[in-house]
């Protein structure tokens, strides 16, 4: 047989064996012992790396769960279902999951809020906020949908009035939208909270009313109507609900002249019908 043929087979085979030997050796030396439970936990977790648990991602969360540095209900988007599965997997007691929901606290859309400028820049709230936005109210929603962009769960959308809407069945409470809003209009609330002041304007009554039809004008009617003293207070021209004191009912909302404090309104909300029906009443 041709000598070159034999030599090349031997050389290639020899090299292959040497490389294989080194790789086997390296595998033995450098093998990373990963807890098999971590893999199972990762199967259960949503794997969106949303960061609502306050950790660096699902993988870090799983590792911390194994070493008992976090509890099984700390995965906010997973909710009760994931919490129960994790409890089963790790053999610990089931605990109630806390799932707060995002509430957008501005109802000044294109129809209600006055425009003071024309904005032609980058279509993003952060960029628009640098210039003060195009609405007269400098506290209200800018309407370019940074929060919708931030939502990884398709739980938000912009409606035809230029305001974001949260779909309550889809919201997992990761608070990504809270981070995204440059005007801090979105807050996380547990489902028991149903009474909200949908305004963040700190302007005096007359100024606020001129800029937006549904602004809080600090008339103090809700403060007086609330059954518990201190349940609703007016601070800096804005009504604030104290959720530890205020009973969750619709009593304080009845005499509101601008209808900016509402009870249980978010549940009624649907993407298209809500604003049009509410507008008819307000106008």
């Amino acid at each position, binding site marked *: 047989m041709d000598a070159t043929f034999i030599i090349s087979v031997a*050389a*290639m085979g020899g090299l292959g064996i040497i*490389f294989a030997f080194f790789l086997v050796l*390296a595998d033995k030396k*450098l093998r*990373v012992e990963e807890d098999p439970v971590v893999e199972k936990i990762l199967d259960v977790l949503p794997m969106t790396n949303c960061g609502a648990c306050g950790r660096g991602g699902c993988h870090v969360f799983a590792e911390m769960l194994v070493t008992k540095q976090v509890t099984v209900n700390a995965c906010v988007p997973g909710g009760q279902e994931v919490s129960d599965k994790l409890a089963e997997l790790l053999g610990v007691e089931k605990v109630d999951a806390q799932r707060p929901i995002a509430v957008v606290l501005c109802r000044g859309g294109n129809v209600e809020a006055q425009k003071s400028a024309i904005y032609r820049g980058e279509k993003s709230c952060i960029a628009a906020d640098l210039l003060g936005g195009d609405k007269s109210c400098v506290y209200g929603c800018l309407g370019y949908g940074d929060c919708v962009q931030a939502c990884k769960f398709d739980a938000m959308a912009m409606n035809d009035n230029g305001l974001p809407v949260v779909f309550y069945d889809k919201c997992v409470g990761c608070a990504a939208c809270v981070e995204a809003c440059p005007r801090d209009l979105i807050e996380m609330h547990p489902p028991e909270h149903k009474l909200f002041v949908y305004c963040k304007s700190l302007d005096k009554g007359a100024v606020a009313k001129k800029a937006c039809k549904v602004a809080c004008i600090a008339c103090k009617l809700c403060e007086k109507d609330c059954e518990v003293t201190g349940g609703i207070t007016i601070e800096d021209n804005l009504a604030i609900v104290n959720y530890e004191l205020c009973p969750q009912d619709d009593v304080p909302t009845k005499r509101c002249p601008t209808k900016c404090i509402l009870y249980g309104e978010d549940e009624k909300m649907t993407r298209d019908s809500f604003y049009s029906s509410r507008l008819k009443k307000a106008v």
Partner: protein
Amino acid sequence: MNVVLVFLSAAIVNNLVLSYFLGICPFLGVSRRLDTAVNMGLATTFVMTLAAVITWLINNYILIPFDLPFLQNVTFIITIASLVQLVEMFIRKSSPPLYRSLGIYLPLITTNCAILGLTLFEALREYSLIESLFFGLGGGVGFTLALVLMAGMREELEFADVPKALQGAPMTLLIAGMLALAFMGFAGLLSV
């Protein structure tokens, strides 16, 4: 002096990506964001430098003495592949966060033609061991430079008003072409 010339030549004048058009796949695929581009560039530089040295040893002590230069392609490929495996295992053990951020890029490097091209050039030009080391390092620096320049421009491009017909891949390719043209300006600098 020769070593410096080899390094500069590989990094700038005869840049693997921009004048030999090797490694175009990662050049276009991983240049969308600056931080990933830097990570990919560093990982590639590391593998290139190691590969240049080890393939030099194999070439000069096995392939040439046994008169087997026709096996260069195959040998170099398995060398690079095993090297990447080894590097992957090492990083996984020593630095899990780095492993997680590089995770996807390491297997990509296995089939990066810029590295294979580099090792073949090195054999063709009959560099010495030290020259090979600097050739590998220079090639890696050049690759990183191309990737980082491209990523920087593509990040700026996000805010630019690109005509609709050119959005996405066409604009990226145009920019890559212009960058390559700009690098041709270095051609007269030195010739190695």
